[in-house]
């Protein structure tokens, strides 16, 4: 089955940027990709992520793992928060 790919900016924050070695990159994802699938494909791309705790933000919110990322401007991988 043919799917169209979209190019999306993926940002890495804090500890994750340190481990991966970059702050952001542009990646292609097929139409209909879920947050869960993003997690899987990023773990393959950056094995360091396997042992790290993070949440995936789609634009400025934290959707459920089943949510589809179509139409978003960017993804952000967020390690544990430490504000305040």
């Amino acid at each position, binding site marked *: 089955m043919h799917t169209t790919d979209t190019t999306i900016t993926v*940002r890495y*924050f*804090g*500890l994750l940027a340190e481990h991966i070695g970059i702050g952001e990159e542009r990646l292609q994802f097929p139409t209909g990709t879920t947050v869960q699938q993003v997690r899987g494909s990023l773990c393959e791309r950056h094995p360091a992520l396997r042992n790290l705790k993070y949440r995936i*933000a789609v*634009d*400025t*919110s934290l959707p459920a793992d089943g949510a589809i990322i179509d139409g978003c401007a960017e993804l*952000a991988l*967020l*390690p*544990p*928060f*430490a*504000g*305040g």
Partner: protein
Amino acid sequence: MSTTEKTTKLKNIFIDGAITPERIATSIANHQTKTGIGAHDIFLGQVRADTIGTSTVSAIDYTAHTEMANTEMQKIREEAFSRFDLTCMHVYHSLGAVSAGGICLFVFVSSPHRQAAFDACRYVVENIKERLPVFGKELFAGGGHQWKENR
């Protein structure tokens, strides 16, 4: 309302470096014309020189997903105003390095009465700690670092 319109309305809570006592004083002074206020509650987060093993924290270097943090802060603000009888609320958080002893978070809530001020301040601080994508790299005196994680 378009996303752009909404984004331009967002308050930016982030400031570079430590929050100074002078900024806090100015903020307090700005409320003295609001004569319906009876109670202010101010929370200040200060960087602790924690000792981890043989290392001591000399500063925390803060980074954040600022667009998301400001968006989430706007939600927390709306929640606080709907739950508590508030007159004003102001929040500032540092970005970049803040040395031990420096102030990195300033939450200022004002209400006609003290119970609302106390309840709202606590609500806002807890939600900031839990919901804002802010990251802190604890820099050790003499080199090295570790990443802070809120409990």
